[in-house]
C-alpha cells in the first residue's frame, strides 16, 4: 500500500517545471504540500491524476497502492489505480439537491418505473452518514455553506464503505480555499476521519495553520523541486516559510531597455499626463463590502503598495472595489480629491485614472477568441480605429517593451499564446494608458521566471514615472522585491503596516501576514 513518486520531472516546451520530485506518503497520513504559485504543486497533482505526463526517465516511478507505473496515462487510469481528487471548485450542480448530486456522480439506482427515488435518498443518506455530514439531502446545493459543499465533494469522490477499498489516494487540491476560517475546523476534522480509515491524503493548501494542526508531514516545493520534507513534529512555521520563499532566479538577464521603454511608448501614443511624485493620489476610508468591514489606507504617486491577507480576510474584494467593478456598501474612495460615487462601473474608474489587472486571466484578463491586437488596444479602441498605421506601431512597440513573443503575433489568437505572454500583453494594455493608479491582482500567477522579471522591471519603471501601483499577491517575495510599503488586511481591516527599512522590506514578516 502507500503512495510513492520517484524522480518525476515534467517539462513544457523545453522548460522543466517539475524537477526530479520524490515523495512517499504512508497509509493513513495527511501530507501537506506547500509552495508559492508556480512552484510545481499543480503540476505534481496533474501527474498523479493522469492529466500531465512525466518526462521519460529510467528511474521515474509512480506507486499508488499496489500498482506501479512510470506514467499514469489518463484520468481514467488514475481513477482505476485508486486516485480520487477534490479540486477547489466543487463538482456539485447548483440547482440539484444533495441527493441528486450524489446519484449524478455514482449513477441513478433504477426501479421498475424509471429512477428509484427512495434508493437515491437512501444512497445519499448512507454516504453522508459515513463522513458524519449533517446536511438535509433534499437541500439545494446552492444553499450549502462552502465547508458543506467541500465535504460532500469528498464524500462523492470516495463513495460508500465498499468503495473505500478501491481508494488508494485522496488529493485535496486547495479544496479548503473557499472555506472561511470559522468553518475550516469542521471540514478538516472530517478529513482526519477519512485518513483514519487508512487512506493516504495529499493536501494542497495555502493555510499554514491548517497544515500545522492537521497534517502529519509536510513537503515544500520551490521552483519545481522538493526542497523540504519533514514530519510535522520536526518543523516550525518559520522553517516552512523560509523554505517557501523563492530563491533568487538565475534566468537569463535582460537589459531593461532592450526593446524600448515605457516613456518611448507613451511618447508614441502622445500620452502627456505627468504625475508629481509623492503626492497622495488615492485615499480609501472605512471601505466596506461583504467580508471587508472597515478598511482605510492611502496611496501616493510613485509608490508601490503591497496588500496581503488570508483568503477569508476580505482582501479579495479590494481590487474590484478600487477599479469600480463592484460597488461598495460603505466607506469612501477618493482619487485626486474626487470621490467615487457609490454606484460604480469600471468605465467611471478608468475615467478617473484607475485600471485593474485582474487575477483570473481567462475570465477577466483577455478575450481568448480575439486577436492580440484587439485585446491590447481594446480600452483605447476609439483612438486607433481610423489610424491603422498607429495601431500597428503601438502594438509593435508594446510587444517590444513588454517582450511579447512571438514578434509576428499581431493578428494571433490570444488564446493560443502562452500564459506568460498573455499576462505581458494584458499588462501592456493597461500600462499603455498610463493610469494614475494601477491595481495588480496576483500579476505573476502562472508566469514563468523570465517574464516575472520583466513584469517587475516595468512595474518599477512605471512607479518611477509617477504612477501609483497597488499589488495584491500570495507571494511575499514578490512584494518584498517591488513594494515600497506593505499593509496587512485581517478580518476586514488594515491591521499592520510595513515600511522599507534601509531600503529593504522584511519578506519573513510579509510571509507571516500572507499565510498565518
Amino acid at each position, binding site marked *: 500500500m502507500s503512495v510513492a513518486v520517484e524522480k518525476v520531472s515534467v517539462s513544457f516546451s523545453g522548460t522543466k517545471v517539475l524537477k526530479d520530485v520524490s515523495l512517499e506518503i504512508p497509509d493513513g497520513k495527511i501530507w501537506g504540500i506547500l509552495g508559492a504559485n508556480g512552484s510545481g504543486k499543480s503540476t505534481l497533482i496533474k501527474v498523479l491524476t493522469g492529466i500531465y505526463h512525466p518526462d521519460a526517465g529510467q528511474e521515474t516511478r509512480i506507486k499508488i497502492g499496489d500498482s506501479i507505473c512510470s506514467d499514469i496515462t489518463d484520468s481514467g487510469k488514475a481513477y482505476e489505480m485508486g486516485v480520487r481528487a477534490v479540486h477547489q471548485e466543487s463538482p456539485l450542480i447548483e440547482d440539484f439537491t444533495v441527493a441528486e448530486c450524489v446519484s449524478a456522480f455514482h449513477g441513478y439506482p433504477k426501479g421498475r418505473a424509471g429512477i428509484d427515488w427512495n434508493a437515491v435518498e437512501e444512497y445519499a443518506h448512507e454516504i453522508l452518514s459515513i463522513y458524519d455530514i449533517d446536511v438535509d439531502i433534499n437541500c439545494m446545493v446552492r444553499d450549502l455553506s462552502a465547508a458543506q459543499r467541500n465535504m460532500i465533494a469528498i464524500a462523492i469522490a470516495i463513495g460508500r464503505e465498499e468503495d473505500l477499498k478501491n481508494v488508494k489516494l485522496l488529493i485535496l487540491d486547495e479544496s479548503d480555499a473557499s472555506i472561511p476560517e470559522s468553518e475550516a475546523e469542521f471540514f478538516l476534522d472530517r478529513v482526519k476521519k477519512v485518513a483514519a480509515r487508512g487512506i493516504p491524503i495529499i493536501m494542497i493548501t495555502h493555510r499554514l495553520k491548517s497544515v500545522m494542526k492537521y497534517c502529519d508531514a509536510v513537503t515544500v516545493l520551490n521552483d519545481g523541486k522538493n526542497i523540504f520534507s519533514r514530519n510535522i513534529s520536526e518543523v516550525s512555521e518559520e522553517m516552512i516559510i523560509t523554505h517557501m520563499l523563492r530563491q533568487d532566479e538565475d534566468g537569463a538577464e535582460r537589459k531593461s531597455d532592450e526593446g524600448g521603454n515605457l516613456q518611448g511608448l507613451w511618447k508614441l501614443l502622445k500620452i502627456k499626463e505627468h504625475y508629481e511624485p509623492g503626492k497622495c493620489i488615492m485615499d480609501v476610508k472605512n471601505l466596506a463590502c461583504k467580508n471587508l468591514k472597515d478598511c482605510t489606507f492611502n496611496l501616493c504617486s510613485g509608490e508601490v503598495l503591497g496588500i496581503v491577507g488570508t483568503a477569508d480576510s476580505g482582501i479579495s474584494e479590494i481590487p474590484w472595489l478600487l477599479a469600480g467593478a463592484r460597488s461598495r456598501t460603505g466607506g469612501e474612495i477618493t482619487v485626486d480629491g474626487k470621490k467615487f460615487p457609490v454606484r460604480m*462601473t*469600471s*468605465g467611471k474608474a478608468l475615467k478617473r485614472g484607475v485600471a485593474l489587472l485582474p487575477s483570473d486571466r481567462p475570465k477577466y484578463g483577455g478575450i481568448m477568441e480575439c486577436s492580440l491586437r484587439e485585446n491590447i488596444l481594446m480600452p483605447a479602441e476609439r483612438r486607433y480605429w481610423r489610424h491603422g498605421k498607429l495601431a500597428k506601431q503601438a502594438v509593435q512597440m508594446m510587444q517590444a517593451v513588454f517582450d511579447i513573443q512571438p514578434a509576428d503575433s499581431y493578428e494571433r489568437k490570444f488564446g493560443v499564446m502562452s500564459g506568460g505572454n498573455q499576462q505581458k500583453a494584458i499588462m501592456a494594455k493597461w500600462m499603455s494608458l498610463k493610469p494614475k493608479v494601477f491595481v495588480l491582482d496576483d500579476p505573476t500567477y502562472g508566469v514563468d521566471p523570465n517574464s516575472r522579471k520583466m513584469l517587475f522591471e516595468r512595474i518599477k519603471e512605471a512607479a518611477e514615472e509617477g504612477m501609483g501601483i497597488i499589488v495584491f499577491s500570495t507571494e511575499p517575495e514578490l512584494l518584498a522585491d517591488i513594494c515600497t510599503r506593505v499593509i496587512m488586511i485581517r478580518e476586514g481591516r488594515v491591521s499592520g503596516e510595513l515600511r522599507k527599512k534601509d531600503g529593504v522590506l522584511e519578506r519573513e514578516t510579509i510571509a507571516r501576514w500572507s499565510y498565518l
Partner: protein
Amino acid sequence: MTKKNVLDVKKRGVPVLTVILALVFMIFIPQFSSVQNANIIGIGRVPVAIFAMASLIPLAAGEFDISLGYMIGFLMMAGGKMASIGGTALGVVVVILGLSVILGAFNGIITVFFKIPSTISTLATGMIMYGGSLFLNGGRSFTGVTPDLLIWINQIKIVKLNIGIWICILLAVIVYLVLEHSPLGRYIYETGNARSVVELAGVNTKAVRFLSFVFAGILIGFCAVLLISQTRNVYPDTGPAYLLPGLAVTFLSITMHTPGRYNVPGVIWSTVLLGMVFNVISILGAPFWAEAVINGLVLLGVVIIMKQS
C-alpha cells in the same frame, strides 16, 4: 493549411464551392446564366440576407433575438394599415422604419435593463408582435394596399439589377464597415466573446447590447419595406417564414471569412450559394418542399465539414 493557401477550407471553402457551382450551373443549365434569372434569385434572397444580417448583430454581441421573424410580420402589417387608411409611400416607409427602431429598443430594454435572457425576452416580445400583427386587421391580410410609388421604385433597375439587390449590397457594406472597422463593431464582437473582460476595459456593455437590438430592428425595418414593395398584398404571417432560413444563413457565416465569428461576407456568400442551389432545383422542377430540406442539409453538411477540417 498555410495562410497563402487559396483553398484554405476554413476561410474560403464556401466561396470556392459557390464559384465552382456557379460555373457548373452556367455550363450545364442554360436558363441559369441570364440577367433575368439573376434578378429572380436576388429578389427572392434579398430579404433572407437582410434578415440574416439583422440576426447577426445581436448574436455577435452574445444575444439571440428570436422575435425578428414576427417583427417583419408586424411591421409589414403596420405598413399595410398605414396604406389602407390612405397613407402615402413616404408615410408607410416612415411608419415601418420608425416602429422598427421602437421595437428593437423595446427588445433591448427588456433584455438588457430587466436582465432577462434574450431567448426568453425575445420569444415573449415576438409573440406579442405576432398578436399585434393579427390585431391590426382582425387576422386578415391587407389586399391591394401598397402605394404605387413603392411598387414602382421596387421595379427600378440599376445596371440591369433590381434596386432591392443594390439596397441589400449597400446595407451589407454599411454593416460590414461598422462591425469590422469601427470601435462599436469591435466592442460588439468583444462583448459577445467575453463581456466581463470588456467591462473592465471601461466599455458600457449594456449600451453595446442594447444597440445591437436596435440595429437588428432597423435592418428588419428595411427588410419589411422591401417585402411590402414586392407585392400589393400584406399577410400577417409572412414574417416567421424568414426566421429559420435567415438564421441558417447567419450560422453558415461563421464557417467562412473569419471562422468562428458571425460575419457579413459569410452571410453574403451563404446567401448566394443557397440562392443558386434553390434556383437550380426549381429550374429542374423539384417539389416545393425540397428547398427547406436542402437548406437544412447544406447547413448541417457545411458545419460538419468545417468541424472535421
